[in-house]
């Protein structure tokens, strides 16, 4: 007997923001009987970006999912992306690492994100969340980047701050690191 298994897909939808995008997309998912297991949807500039991890019981196919969502996205003028996830991608890692917030801000210049994240990658520091925003005026644009990272064994907020000290000087930006590990009551 064929055992029904749970399939997972990563779905992205990006396009010009307007009211009703989430309702239209999730109506399609609801009609298919999909679960939204994880999602992050936000406005970036004038665009609205949705990233969803959806799950549903087999038998099902990526084609069927696209058939349902593509006309909805076309109607809204949005771009659709669908990726099938392997079962080993679905199991979420247990993180017991310390979580840190790294704030970086200063006069806008090319390479802020790259230079900071290159240092983190070299030390095997995993980024769990990253937001950037261009603020300030046209004459004096300021770049703000907020990163949440998981520290591997041996790293501390102080060691990360120390590691980024040279970069802070070189780019002439502010870099602060503080621990935000959740406390479970």
């Amino acid at each position: 007997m064929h055992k029904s298994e749970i399939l997972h897909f990563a779905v992205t939808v990006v396009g010009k923001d307007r009211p009703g995008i989430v309702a239209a997309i999730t109506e399609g998912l609801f009609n298919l009987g999909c679960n939204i297991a994880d999602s992050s949807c936000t406005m970036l500039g004038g665009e609205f970006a949705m990233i969803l991890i959806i799950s549903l019981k087999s038998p099902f196919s990526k084609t069927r999912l696209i058939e349902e969502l593509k006309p909805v996205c076309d109607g809204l003028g949005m771009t659709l992306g669908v990726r099938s996830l392997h079962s080993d991608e679905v199991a979420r890692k247990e993180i017991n690492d310390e979580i840190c917030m790294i704030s970086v801000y200063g006069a806008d210049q090319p390479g802020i994100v790259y230079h900071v994240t290159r240092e983190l990658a070299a030390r095997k520091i995993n980024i769990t969340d990253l937001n950037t925003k261009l603020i300030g005026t046209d004459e004096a644009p300021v770049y703000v980047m907020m990163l949440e990272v998981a520290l591997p064994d041996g790293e501390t907020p102080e060691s990360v701050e120390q590691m980024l000290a040279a970069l802070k000087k070189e780019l002439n930006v502010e870099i602060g690191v503080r621990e935000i590990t959740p406390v479970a009551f």
Partner: protein
Amino acid sequence: MPIQSILRYPHPVLKKLCRNVEKIDKTILSLIEDLIDTMHDGPGSVGVAAPQIGVTLRVCVIDVSKNRHGKENNHGLLRMINPEITARSGSATMREGCMSVPDYTGDVERATEVTLRFTEPDGTVREFVASGFEAVAIQHEMDHLDGILFLDRVTSIKTGLFRRKNY
């Protein structure tokens, strides 16, 4: 039956308003012992409220003295019967999680200083000012007595950063 299992949302007891303890008897004393044993059993747990083990009475225990955030500033093990916060001041945000709501964490704003009054198991009424991490723990546990979960107070949510096994 010392260590009790922690109820998880959506268990209905977690959203109930708890009753005041009218009389401190054997049942209440053994409830407090159970709460303490359960707290010590939970990895890194700094507090447990009675509804978390299925009892809708205004009783909770807190001990932040072994936690790195609380070890410098605490009142030791607190056995709180009918606790009340009579004054609060300041405000700070901390990322909280809860044994009754696994897999979620979120930023919650709390008072940084609270004046706390409660009855001890021996019947004496105690009142003092708690601050910092201990004050956060007190507010979190006392919310349980009113059926309030940290999810009701989250200003920004972060999911899955600890102990999430899979979807």
